[in-house]
């Protein structure tokens, strides 16, 4: 059983993974569950804008940097489970499938299956890509030596 207290944290993590994953990979993972849920849309899949905010000096007053495209979907499964997805970009197919996955995971038992079959492998791929990037950047780490005038003389 997954611990109930961490439900919000796990959902946050699911959102993070589903928002960044590749649609084709998500679909492949979803197929392994061999499910064909009955899906109705709570509202039409919608693409719009999110205003991105930063903080002056990184920690100060909030300000608007500019907008980004965002796509959201909300679905209800045949058995009444509800799921949502919101992700940057305009990928409506991914938004729909992500909302279905979110709905499936709202059932405690199914959540484990969803985690193991879909979320965990996608998360691994994403963090592998992050680690690869961080290592490549780490190779550009430089140590500057301050030259003292007259040192060579």
């Amino acid at each position, binding site marked *: 059983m997954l611990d109930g207290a961490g439900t*919000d944290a796990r*959902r*946050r993590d699911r*959102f*993070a993974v589903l*928002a*960044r994953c590749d649609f084709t990979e998500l679909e492949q993972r979803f197929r392994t569950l061999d499910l064909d849920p009955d899906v109705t849309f709570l509202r039409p899949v*919608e*693409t*719009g*804008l*999110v*205003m*991105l*905010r*930063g*903080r*002056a*000096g*990184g*920690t*100060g*007053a*909030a*300000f*608007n*940097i*500019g*907008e*980004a*495209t*965002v796509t*959201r979907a*909300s679905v209800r499964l045949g058995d009444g489970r509800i799921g*949502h997805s*919101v*992700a*940057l*970009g*305009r990928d409506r197919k991914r938004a729909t499938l992500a909302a279905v996955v979110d709905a499936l995971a709202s059932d405690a038992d199914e959540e484990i299956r969803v985690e193991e079959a879909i979320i965990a492998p996608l998360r691994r791929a994403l963090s592998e890509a*992050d*680690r*690869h*990037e*961080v*290592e*490549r*950047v*780490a*190779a*550009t*780490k*430089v*140590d*500057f030596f*301050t030259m003292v005038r007259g040192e060579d003389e």
Partner: protein
Amino acid sequence: MYVAVKGGETAIDNAHRLLAEKRRGDRRLPALTLGQIAEQLALSVARVMAEGALYDTQLAALAVKQARGDLIEAIFLLRAYRTTLPRLYDSVPVDTGAMLIERRISACFKDLPGGQLLGPTFDYTHRLLDPNLVGEEEQTTDLQTGPVGDAVVRVSDLLANDDLIEGEEPVTNGHGVEPEPGDMTREPLSYPLTREQRLQALARGDEGFLLALGYSTQRGYGRNHPFAGEIRIGAVEVEIDLPELGHAVPIGRVQLTECQMVNQFRGSSEMPPQFTRGYGLVFGQSERKAMSMALVDRALRAREFEEDIIAPAQDEEFVVSHCDNVQATGFVEHLKLPHYVDFQSELQLIRTLRKEWADGAGTDDDEDTGFSQEAAE
């Protein structure tokens, strides 16, 4: 003033066909794909997103392609596109301290937690044209990897810990609630502005204009003694508060460039001297723009620090009302529209003036000053 004209539909239609043909160029060459533009002209795409004030690499790539590489035209296209979409959310302010770092340098400290990470930089290249990039590329770059170091702490946070630099805390009202920051896409700006409003305007402002203004402060027009405390580029997680769930959720990442300029001091009888800050935050990898923005942000804080406002970069209304290249290009380029009636009246006036001049030629009661004044009106 210009007046409406009618007709010309066929000519306009043909001009647009010609434009499409010129855009495509020599058809013996393959057409550019959006993926190629987004990947291989990534910094053009970043600039279009930043100044178009819309983060979407595919749309920005499309805009670059459609505009034949004219970046201001591409920015205009992106601005126009955004007006067709509804605003669904405002994000939680991004945490640049938690950035997945692609590049991070400081000109203030040689050794600092997380180190100096050069990342994919043009710095230290010799700026020699590279014949290897002519034609098809053959070899792939042999990329090295390095051991992952410590957390990359913001330089400004290090300085703030010792109170050496002015603090930057969220602004809250009496109930500890942060007010909504002003949004120039929703309400028109009225001067004077808050720093938050200025930062939004600068973040979408023209890189060239801000670069020139930033440069002017260095050359003495509103000097503020800057050090590049830190420049960092990387991906940050965007979160929104989702009402359906009652908590914040991550919705993906965006690439940002942040510049923290550390500037000379302020202090008073109540407060010991502290460094002051200039801040730049820009979509994509846009180091020059982020640095320029930080210089101009600091210059525009002159009123706050009771400095003399003597230079263009310190004049908020001058800077903010001229930094938008879509507005600027609109007004400059509107001069192309028919001004036939206006010009007819000018022609009449100049003919009258010339006649008066010819009639009065040789006489002593010449009224030069009268002429020039009238003509200027």
